[in-house]
């Protein structure tokens, strides 16, 4: 009871409420601008929140995370361009609905089902976080923790990499970067080259802002072309009628279940869940032929599924210390700076945090829903903001935000260097996720491996290394080997990361459905959708 009261009372402070509102507005803006991802802005905000109290900082970061899930649906529906990767599946039915004059209805239903998905995932977080953490705390010793880290990095490699070799190399580069600084057990200096700033290791915030923020900015600068696509201005009616709401029920249930499950898999985020949810809902729908042609069910399934991953990601992050997605990887870095390390012992040491986190998520969801329903028309205008303003603003905020973490310009130089490295990685399709996870979790892996090796000579192998550790290591191997074997069996052109393949399949089905529809109504020709879905 005390933990509940403590958790709630921490939320009632004025500075926490202000932080929540600021984060929510930022998140909505981030979502609405194609090209800005939640990871990028949470990384940037990490620089601002360094000096804050943990609950206040969590209020900023979590509300960005939640609100971006609402804002990113606007460009998906109105210009066929996902605001963030999580809304890729929204374009499949959202944009066709907008073309049919139902943009207002699509925006409202999207906001409503996103709220349902996030609320369901908060319930999952409240129900599962403490039991999972308790189980991990009692069962996870050094070998299991080492295996868990390896598993987390392997899953990230398996999901995000088009080429397994590049993904593994990315993970290894992250782990290698994690060895810079003093070795925790003996204080021996490694790769510091006499530079004082390197003794505590590379600045994590500078690296992630470089890899996710600056690299994305540079990529946009490199590839930008003037778009002739204009937002759809005729929004039509806003509120769904009762039969339309009833129609979405099954899709919401299917999408929600998919999202809750996918969210619990480390490194799998809303983009994958949205596409799987859309596909599953199509299979159980009474009108599967409407999917991809502007189906309310398709839209509802995709948005519920992608939103419902939030609680699962949060659960694995907080209870196990393994980031559920890239936003959570950034958040772990911030939490470590605040002096609270996510992992099995977090909720034992700070049970009030479960309540505070759930409360922040709940408030951010309800406020974002309210703002979405009230300000949708205003947000459409954001799509007209000139890119030069955005680019210059992002760069300056990245620079000043990074400087704020250490008050040293050398940290900003580190960020710029990793921005260039991130751009090169992006151009050769080497994923940044495994690099960040390796950097973040490398010291933990090394520490637990060293402890395991120290115990091993004293006791039988199977007494030290439990079946849980062996199972996690086996799963880690499988999560890299299985996609690699599948990829080898495909033709070279058909290869891609899991998310890419799912997206291509769903887009192909949606395009087929739209072509059928256009053939029926306009035999002269058809226009395939999804032309601009890569911009996120």
């Amino acid at each position: 009871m005390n933990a509940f009261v403590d958790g709630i009372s921490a939320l009632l402070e004025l500075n926490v409420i202000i932080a929540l509102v600021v984060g929510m507005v930022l998140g909505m803006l981030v979502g609405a601008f194609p090209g800005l991802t939640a990871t990028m802005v949470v990384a940037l905000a990490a620089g601002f929140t360094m000096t804050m109290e943990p609950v206040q900082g969590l209020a900023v970061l979590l509300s960005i995370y939640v609100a971006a899930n609402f804002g990113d649906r606007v460009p998906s529906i109105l210009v066929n361009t996902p605001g963030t990767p999580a809304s890729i599946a929204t374009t499949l039915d959202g944009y066709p609905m907008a073309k049919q004059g139902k943009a207002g209805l699509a925006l409202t239903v999207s906001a409503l089902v996103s709220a349902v998905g996030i609320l369901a995932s908060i319930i999952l977080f409240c129900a599962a976080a403490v039991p999972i953490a308790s189980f991990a705390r009692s069962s996870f010793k050094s070998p299991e923790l080492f295996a868990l880290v390896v598993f987390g990095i392997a899953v990230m490699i398996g999901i995000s990499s088009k080429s397994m070799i590049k993904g593994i190399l990315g993970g290894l580069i992250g782990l290698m970067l994690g060895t810079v600084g003093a070795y925790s057990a003996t204080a021996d200096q490694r790769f510091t080259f006499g530079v004082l700033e390197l003794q505590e290791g590379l600045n994590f915030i500078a690296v992630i802002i470089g890899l996710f923020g600056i690299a994305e900015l540079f990529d946009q600068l490199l590839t930008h072309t003037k778009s002739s696509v204009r937002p759809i201005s005729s929004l039509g009616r806003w509120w769904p009628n009762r039969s339309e709401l009833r129609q979405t029920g099954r899709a919401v249930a299917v999408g929600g279940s998919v999202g809750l499950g996918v969210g619990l898999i480390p490194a799998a985020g809303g983009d994958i869940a949205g596409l799987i949810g859309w596909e599953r809902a199509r299979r159980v729908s009474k009108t599967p032929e409407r999917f991809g042609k502007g189906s309310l069910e398709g839209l509802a399934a995709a948005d519920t599924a992608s939103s419902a991953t939030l609680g699962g990601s949060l659960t694995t992050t907080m209870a196990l210390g393994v980031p559920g997605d890239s936003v959570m990887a950034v958040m772990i870095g911030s939490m470590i700076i605040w002096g609270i390390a996510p992992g099995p012992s977090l909720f034992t040491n700070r049970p009030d945090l479960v309540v505070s986190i759930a409360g922040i998520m709940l408030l951010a969801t309800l406020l974002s829903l309210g703002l979405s329903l009230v300000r949708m028309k205003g947000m459409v205008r954001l799509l007209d903001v000139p890119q030069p303003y955005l680019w210059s603003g992002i760069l300056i905020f990245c620079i000043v935000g990074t400087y704020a973490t250490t008050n040293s310009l050398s940290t900003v130089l580190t960020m710029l260097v990793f921005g260039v490295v991130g751009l090169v990685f992006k151009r050769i399709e080497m994923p940044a996720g495994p690099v960040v996870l390796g950097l973040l979790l490398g010291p933990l892996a090394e520490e637990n491996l060293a402890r395991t090796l120290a115990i091993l000579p004293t006791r039988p192998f199977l007494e030290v290394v439990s079946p849980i550790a062996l199972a996690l290591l086996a799963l880690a191997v499988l999560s890299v080997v299985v996609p690699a074997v599948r990829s080898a069996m495909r033709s070279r052109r058909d290869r891609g990361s899991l998310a890419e393949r799912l997206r291509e399949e769903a887009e192909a089905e949606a395009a087929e459905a739209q072509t059928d529809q256009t053939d029926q109504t306009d035999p002269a020709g058809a226009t395939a959708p999804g032309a601009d879905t890569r911009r996120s």
Partner: protein
Amino acid sequence: MTDTAPAPAPARRWTRDTAMDLVVSIALLALAIAYLVLSSQIELRREAAPGQMDARAWPIFLGVAAVVTAGLLVLRTMLRGADPRDEIETAQPGGLLRVGGTMAIALAYLALWAVNDLVLPGIRIPVFPIATAVAVAALLLLYGHRGWKGLVIYPIALAALNWVLFAMLLRIPL
């Protein structure tokens, strides 16, 4: 018959993507080798007991794994070329100039920022807001923005926002 006949395998060509992949993978291999060499030279205060890990063990393990993986990547790129870049948008003319220019302006901004505040009799003029406004205006010019209002008002507003947020509210010594 011709519809079902398998298409002839395309001849392997040295595309720009392959060249880029090869350059990057060779650079990564060189870095991995350098890392491995440096790992073996880490100075130890005390040796670890047999079978246990000292400060060198983990980096050496990672170095060996990275050399093997980067070597495989070089080999694969040489034998099979780069994977198709379906998901990567093409670099546009002027794109590289925008990136290079942005980097140059960012470095110049840092150099200007590092200059001490101007102290005149009775007044101290902070360099940060001036440097920020100049850098933003330069960036807007680089990105093709030519309207004078945007080139004046937006940089000043952004510099002021950063000053208020970081220097006044968060008390960061800019």
